[in-house]
Each structure stands twice: as structure tokens, then as C-alpha cells.
């Protein structure tokens, strides 16, 4: 029989048992839809993380304090206190592979402008911070090294702060706001950055001189983080080594002991995310595999039923000249058609689910052509694999016995 006729035959057989065919497809539909949606979410967040990380400046290096106490209660990095002013001084002294350095401390609290208030983070940094993070100013000016020295009560604000504290749209430059009862003068507004991958509003931020936040708000001499910027992307690894050496010297750590800080470059972070997404991909592949096997077993089951039901038809077809291969192809094409149709419906559902996730949860998603083509092919193979044995059984029937079957 010609392939067109085989497909017509299979379509007709499926149409005659629409509900049964649909229920059989359901396993495949759910499996494929789940895989398409999950891959889309995975790919979307991967892409957005990557673009954000490189947008942050792929030269950025982050130094955090680290507990080097083995065992016992491990403390989180806001309470671990190892990074101090002399560390920054040591780093700034004679850098080879990095340029800008900025300490950072932050505090959460309420900020007030007259009747308007808002709970946010104030971050104490140095003037270089904007350069390291590649955060441009929209208007006004950055604070200076002099402001840091004098612990000046000046600040830069993000767009979310502006819209919450100045809902009437008045110009915030030069205005006074109060954070934990300490008055700050707004001298600059940061340009809009939007949300990051984790859904954090990056515009919900106040930047002030690091000493101001340390002394007037936190009453601490420690830093929570030190940011630095490598000369260029290629020298990040060298910069990490250099910073590690400088800080070990500054902390007077004897050789052989663990670092009491962690230095991480942006490139490293990107690699970590890539590795995570690879694990995710393997996990998805396993889920896809399991659901398609379950779907395939469903197809196999229903094809066996179908062969038994149509024994007499098979006998008739054989008696008028159908060869074993013709019967085999008839049932194989039917199985493939069921699984591929299920796959197509699954792809449609998957894409729809992906759109819903983007619309309602605002998660970044990306449906790749590769995932669609791959699931389609896997469905085809599933159909062939699980349809083969029932089809082979049909083709091996004895025409006389099949004709006599009631």
C-alpha cells in the first residue's frame, strides 16, 4: 500500500475511536507539554540571568566575608565580620589587574518624605560603585570621596524610591528625605533598571557614602561586601588571585589556613548558572523520558486491543492479498500518528502554558525551536517503538484463523 493510503487508513481508524485515541494521546500530550513549558522556563531564566550578569559588567568581582571556623554554628555573611577599611586600603594601594574598588554595607528601614513613606534598603558604597555596577545616573551628580571622608548625609535614589516618595512628580534633586530619622539630601537619581531574574526590583535602592551608613545607621566598622572591577574580562582570574593574596596578607593569614573571605568573579557566576541549568536540562530529559515511556506504554496497550478487535479485518485483508508488511505498516502508521498527533497537541499546550506563565507570573520564558523539533522526533520514535510489537503481532496472524475469529 502507498503511504498516503496508509495514513488515510490510520486517520480513519483514529476518527472511529476519537475518545479512545485522545485518552491514549493524553500521556504523550501531558509529557510533551510539560517538557516544552519547563524547557521554556529554564531557557528563559538562563538567558535572562546571562544577559543580566553580563549587563552588570562581566568584569565585576565580589568579595564577601566568610567564616573559616570549621564545624559549630556557621554564621551568615552579614554577621561574619572580617572585611574592614584597611582591606579596601590595601586593595587600592597598588592594583595590577583590577581598577575600581568599592565597599558595601546595607541596612533595611523606612524612608520618609513628609507624609510619604517606603520601606527599602540603603546601601553604603564608595563613589566607584556606580562604575563597577555600570549603573548610570539619570540626573544630578554622584557623591565624592570627600563625602565619604566626612560621612556626608547625601544620597542617590532609584526610580522606585522617587515614585513612592514623590508621587506628585516633583523634582527630587535637592530634597531632604529621612531614613531611620537621619536626614539625607538627594543629589542624584539613578536611571531605571527594572527587575532582575529573581524578581527583585533593582530600582528600589538608596545609595549613600559607605561611612555615613556605617557610622550613622549601622554603628559598625565592618563591610558586608567589597566590589571591584577587573581591568578587562580576560584578567578576571588573575584579578581574583591578586585580590586573594592582598587580602590574605592584610588579614595576616598563615599559609595553609582557609580564607576568611570569598572572591568570586562574574565569569565564575555565569559558569555556576550554566552548570545549574545543565543539571536542570538533564532532569528535564529524565522527566520527558519517563512521561514518554508511560505514554508509549499506553499506545502499545491500545494498539494490542486494536489488533485483537480487528482480527477479522486483518484476516480479510490478508485473504485479498495484503502481505505481512502491509498489515505491519497499517498498525505502525496508526501508532505513529497517535503519538505524533499527541506530540503536536502537547507542543501547542506547552507553548500556551509558557505564555500563561509569562503573562501571569512574569517569569521570563523562551520556547526554542530545538525543544519543539526534539519532542516531535521523540514522539515519532515512541510511536515506532511501542507500535512495532502490536503491529508485528498483527502481521504474523494466520489469515484462516483470523478470518474465523469472532
Amino acid at each position, binding site marked *: *500500500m*502507498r503511504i498516503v*493510503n496508509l495514513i488515510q487508513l490510520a486517520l480513519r481508524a483514529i476518527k*472511529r475511536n476519537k475518545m479512545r485515541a485522545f485518552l491514549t494521546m493524553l500521556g504523550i500530550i501531558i509529557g510533551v507539554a510539560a517538557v516544552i513549558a519547563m524547557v521554556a522556563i529554564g531557557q528563559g531564566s538562563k538567558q535572562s540571568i546571562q544577559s543580566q550578569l553580563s549587563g552588570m559588567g562581566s568584569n565585576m568581582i565580589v568579595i564577601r566575608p566568610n567564616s573559616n571556623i570549621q564545624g559549630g554554628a556557621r554564621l551568615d555573611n552579614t554577621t561574619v565580620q572580617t572585611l574592614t577599611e584597611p582591606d579596601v586600603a590595601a586593595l587600592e594601594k597598588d592594583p595590577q589587574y583590577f581598577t575600581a574598588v568599592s565597599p558595601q554595607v546595607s541596612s533595611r528601614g523606612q524612608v520618609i518624605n513628609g507624609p510619604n513613606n517606603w520601606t527599602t534598603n540603603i546601601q553604603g558604597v564608595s563613589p566607584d560603585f556606580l562604575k563597577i555596577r555600570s549603573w548610570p545616573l539619570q540626573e544630578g551628580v554622584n557623591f565624592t570621596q570627600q563625602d565619604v571622608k566626612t560621612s556626608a548625609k547625601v544620597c542617590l535614589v532609584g526610580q522606585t524610591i522617587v515614585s513612592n516618595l514623590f508621587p506628585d512628580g516633583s523634582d527630587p534633586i535637592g530634597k531632604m528625605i529621612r531614613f531611620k530619622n537621619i536626614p539625607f539630601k538627594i543629589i542624584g537619581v539613578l536611571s531605571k533598571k527594572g527587575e532582575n531574574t529573581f524578581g527583585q526590583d533593582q530600582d528600589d535602592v538608596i545609595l549613600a557614602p559607605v561611612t555615613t551608613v556605617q557610622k550613622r545607621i549601622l554603628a559598625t566598622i565592618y563591610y558586608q561586601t567589597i566590589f571591584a572591577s577587573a581591568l578587562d574580562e580576560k584578567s578576571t582570574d588573575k584579578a581574583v588571585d591578586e585580590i586573594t593574596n592582598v587580602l590574605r596578607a592584610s588579614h595576616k593569614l598563615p599559609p595553609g589556613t582557609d580564607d576568611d573571605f570569598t572572591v568570586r568573579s562574574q565569569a565564575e557566576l555565569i559558569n555556576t548558572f550554566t552548570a545549574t541549568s545543565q543539571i536542570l536540562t538533564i532532569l528535564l530529559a529524565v522527566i520527558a523520558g519517563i512521561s514518554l515511556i508511560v505514554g508509549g506504554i499506553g499506545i502499545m496497550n491500545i494498539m494490542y486491543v486494536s489488533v485483537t478487535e480487528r482480527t*477479522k*479485518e486483518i*484476516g*480479510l*485483508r*490478508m*485473504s*485479498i*492479498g*495484503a*502481505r*505481512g*508488511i*502491509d498489515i505491519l505498516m497499517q498498525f505502525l502508521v496508526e501508532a505513529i500518528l497517535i503519538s505524533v498527533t499527541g506530540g503536536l497537541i502537547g507542543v501547542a499546550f506547552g507553548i500556551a502554558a509558557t505564555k500563561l506563565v509569562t503573562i501571569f507570573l512574569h517569569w521570563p520564558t523562551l520556547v526554542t525551536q530545538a525543544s519543539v523539533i526534539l519532542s516531535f522526533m521523540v514522539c515519532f520514535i515512541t510511536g515506532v517503538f511501542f507500535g512495532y510489537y502490536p503491529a508485528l503481532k498483527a502481521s504474523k496472524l494466520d*489469515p*484462516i484463523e483470523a*478470518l474465523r475469529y469472532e
Partner: protein
Amino acid sequence: MNKENSVILDIRNLHREFKMGEETVKALNGVSFTISKGEFVTIMGSSGSGKTTLLNILGCLDKPTSGTYLLDGIDIGKLSKTQLAGYRNRKLGFVFQSYNLLARTSALENVELPLMYNKDFSAKQRKEKALKALEAVGLSQRVHHLPNQLSGGQQQRVAIARALVNDPVMILADEATGNLDTRTSYEIMMLVQELNDVQGKTIVFVTHEPDIASFSKRTITLKDGKIIKDAVNTNVQNAKESLASLPPIDEEITNPVT
């Protein structure tokens, strides 16, 4: 050799045994005969005498345990399963007692079916041939009917059209009138006689009923797997005349034509 005498079927010392555990059933026990082109042979015999077994072998659906079978000069015993399927497709036509039409499939498509398994025919040719076969059995008005929309006699006509569509060298029928009443049986026999007389089709027809056998030119009688009688019918009945001589059906009596 003239046309009338050309042998198309030649079986010699055919045996067919079925093993049922310990015992073997000898369904056919040394059967030999030849059939020439254009013959109309009925095979008779009591139940279990081996008629169906013989017909299955003649129809290339089954192979004998021993003995030879030449169809159109070819030794069927030497062919593979696939080759046998090809033979059934191109050389033979089957008519069954229970019609065996595909359900929910139109008369036309049922008749086209054998040609679907022959790559030599295009869709257009298939349809043309099927329509011609349906016309030959008098069903031109019913081509798009489904089997469940046809009477038993009409369904059997569709089955005959299906057996005709591939221009077979021989048509094999196993109790093709077994499910039909006398009147409809005679109508079918009329058609079979016409195929034999007018179109010169070779026909082998298994039946239980002597009146059906009386429409054929030759009758082979089996008993316990052996031929007990092989006789040329000197008094062939004409199915059309027999049909006319049947008592009129009830309807015509209660509702006389005015």
C-alpha cells in the same frame, strides 16, 4: 490446446493433516483433480468432509501437508508467504459466507480494497474498476452505501464485486449463499451463472445445498477428505428460470399490484 480445455488448476494427491495434541485429523486424504478455464464447479459434501480445507488450499491461504498444487502452471507449494499474498491479490477472488465487508466503509471502498494492495493501480484506476465491478453485480445505485445500509443479498453482491475487481483467473466461494434465503440465493446464483457464461470466469463454489449445485456444470463430492464423486452436470438449471418458478412472495399476495 484450445481455450476451453486449458487447465488452470491441477491438484495431485493432496493431503492436509491437523495435529490436535496426540491425534491427527486427516481433513484431506489424497485429493486429485483438475479444473479448466471457464468451468463452474461446485464442491459438495457433509459437514466436516473437508470442503473448506480444500478451498483454503485452492485459495492459497493454506498449504497442503503433502501433494502438489499447480495454479496457472505455477507450483504454489514452493512459494513464500509474501508470494502467496501476491497470488491471492492478482489471481484469485474470494466470496465468504459471512460477506466479510469492512464495517463503516462504503461499498465502493470495499470493492477497491484488493487494488489498494496492488501498486500498479492509481486512485483513479481503482475507482473506475470498482465502479465497473459494482455495475456488473447490479449495484450502481448503491456505491456510497455502507454495509449496514444494505440487505444481506446486496452485501454479498458487494463481496462478489470485490472478488471480481482484480480480474482474477478464478473465483472461490465458500457457502456464499449460506446466510441467504432461497430467493436471494437464486438471485446470487443468477449473477454467478452470468459471470461464468458471459464473462467466462472460472468458479469454484462450495455448498451444502443440492439445488445450488444444480446450477453448476460440474460437482465434486467429498467425504472424509476423499473425493467420492466427480460428475459433469448434464442437467444444468438456469437460475433465472428457477427464480421465476418460485412461489410469489407474501407481499405480492397481500398487496396485489393494481
